[in-house]
């Protein structure tokens, strides 16, 4: 039984200038199991972000429905859906979207601001999560005083502070250099290794290679699904089907005791080899 089920999801925007309807998603069906790491790839304008925001309970689909943990998300009222986001979802944005006037720990505490917890409890929780993502001792820094990688980790800390069952990420390494991007992916893999369900939009085949599954979207339609990282890496680079099955099991399944560092390294090697 999937934890997340998107059924026949379509999204249409009306273009005021031309007074026409622009269809962005067509009958998309997605299922994500608990603990799964799913990547979504596709060219710009293919509908990746729209699908992500729909799965993130932020963007009402024109058609279809979204069930998360059995809850029909878009049947909820706007305010109840906000509560749902606070309780079930964590977001990592491409630009991180940290609030520059709040300290690192205050940024992490943001999702807890509306919860009826003691201030000390909120702070402890935030510090604990910061420690987990390797930001211990940087609680009082402002986002501008952190490196790109640290900002990315801070954004992840904010996304997971409320222990959301589902973590959504929109090209979290898109604006980072390779080393920093790897650093962020390591955090994601560690989280996923601990059972965190993860749905990530990415352009980066190396990152996609780390997922259990990769969904491809084109012109608003899901047109293929790669079950193994090696296939993804291959498709993402030169489009040929050269198989390197020996890499697949240790990279793609958490039960094979992979470590995030090893996984990234191996995928990067694989990518280089394929190129």
């Amino acid at each position, binding site marked *: 039984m999937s934890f997340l089920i998107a059924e026949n999801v379509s999204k249409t925007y009306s273009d005021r200038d031309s007074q026409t309807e622009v269809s962005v998603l067509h009958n998309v069906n997605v299922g994500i199991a608990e603990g799964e790491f799913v990547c979504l790839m596709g060219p710009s304008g293919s509908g990746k*972000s*729209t699908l992500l*925001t729909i799965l*993130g309970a*932020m*963007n009402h689909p024109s058609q279809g429905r979204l069930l998360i943990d059995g809850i029909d998300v878009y049947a909820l009222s*706007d*305010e109840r859906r*906000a*509560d*749902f*986001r*606070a*309780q079930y*979802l*964590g*977001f990592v*944005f491409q630009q991180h*979207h940290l*609030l*520059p*006037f*709040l300290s690192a720990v*205050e940024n992490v*505490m*943001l*999702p*807890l*601001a*509306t919860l009826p917890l003691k*201030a000390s409890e*909120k*702070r402890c929780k*935030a510090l604990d999560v910061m420690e987990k993502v390797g930001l211990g001792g940087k609680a009082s820094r402002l986002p501008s005083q952190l490196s790109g990688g640290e900002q990315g980790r801070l954004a992840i800390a*904010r*996304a997971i502070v*409320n222990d959301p069952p589902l973590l959504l990420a929109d090209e979290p390494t898109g604006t980072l250099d390779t080393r920093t991007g790897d650093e962020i992916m390591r955090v994601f893999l560690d989280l996923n290794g601990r059972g965190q369900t993860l749905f990530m939009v990415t352009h980066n085949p190396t990152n996609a290679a780390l997922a259990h599954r990769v969904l491809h979207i084109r012109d608003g339609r899901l047109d293929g699904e790669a079950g193994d990282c090696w296939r993804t890496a291959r498709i993402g680079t030169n489009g040929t089907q050269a198989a390197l099955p020996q890499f697949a099991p240790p990279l793609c399944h958490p039960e094979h005791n992979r470590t995030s560092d090893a996984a990234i390294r191996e995928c990067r090697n694989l990518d280089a080899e394929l190129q």
Partner: protein
Amino acid sequence: MRISTIAFANLKRRKGKAMFLAAGIGIGIGTVVALLSLSGSLREEIGSQLDRFGANIVITPHSDNLSLDYGGIQVAGVSFDQQRLTIDDAAAVYRIPYRKRLSVVAPKLLGTIEVEGRRSLLAGVDFQKEMRLKRWWQINGRVPEKSDEVLLGYDVAKAVSAVHSSPGRGDGGGQTPGHHSAIEERIHIAKERLAIAGREHRIAGVLGQTGGPEDRMIFASLEHVQTLLAKPGELSVIEVSALCKDCPVEDIVVQIRKALPHVNVAAVQQSVRARTEAVDRLTRFSAVVSVVVLVIGALLVFTTMMSSVVERTKEIGVLRAIGFRRTHIIKSLMIEVVVISAAGGMGGWIAGLSASRLALPYFTENGAQIEWRASLAVLAIAAAMLIGIVSSAYPAIRASRLDPSEAVRYA
């Protein structure tokens, strides 16, 4: 971390904008506070000046024959009184519940008398009270002190050749304070004595021309006139000046009528109406200016908050995306507005009162003071907060309705 933490952090971050907004509200509230304080003082001053400007209640006996006119008020005829007005009635006026609001109770006996072959109106008055009542009187000479001394009205004095006058500068030798024109007629008393009803009287002073009935009257002490007219203890009219800034003159009239059921008691509508109109105009003017200033303040808050919402689209989108309800967004913005407005209101109260205290001497003459009233501070802060909340309501609601996905993606 609470919603208020975000609001306060935002205020700290946008100190300049917050201060600008607070200053805008402060100027608005300050203007209103200054206007209200100044107009309040002016109202009091106008009220007290008008209260001093003669009597506003006249008590006369019931009579069928009203043949003489006094100050535009028809005075009961001297000869056909049905119910007599006595000095005891004047004393009774002082026993009404509103007695503390009575400024002057001036009894008079009026009668016609032969003066050098002419019929003139003779008024017996209590000079001390009369002088308090008729502050505009300018006396050339002095106020009569003895029973055989008289004060002549200007026309009477001219008619009996008691004065000759020349144009000149100065106060005309008047003993009483009042408003003087720069150039006045200088009156010289040319005669010391005058025969009234066959008895010699000393002319103590001559009234400067008033243009009123006083010009055609002779004033002597009340007791003396009662003797001359053979009406001991009798009165023709009692003029009452009530200090009635906060109470309707009509209430005092009702109380006097109750105390003196056998006499006529009338409010001098003209003076009451003039006073009410003057005060009302001031009040209306202050209200209109206040409304205009407050509307401008509200527009300032509105535009600033609208631009602030646009500027913070991304931030609001992030908050909505991570689970903030619409009401949380509105609350956060409203906390900011309330803090800014309260600061503006407080600043406006201090600035407005300071300005009005500084400006007061240029508007009033009687040394009126404006007190630092805490109640006005509470009102100023409440008004500022109300303006802030009302004018931020739309921007806040608009902010809360931002589509989080759009706000986050395109900001």
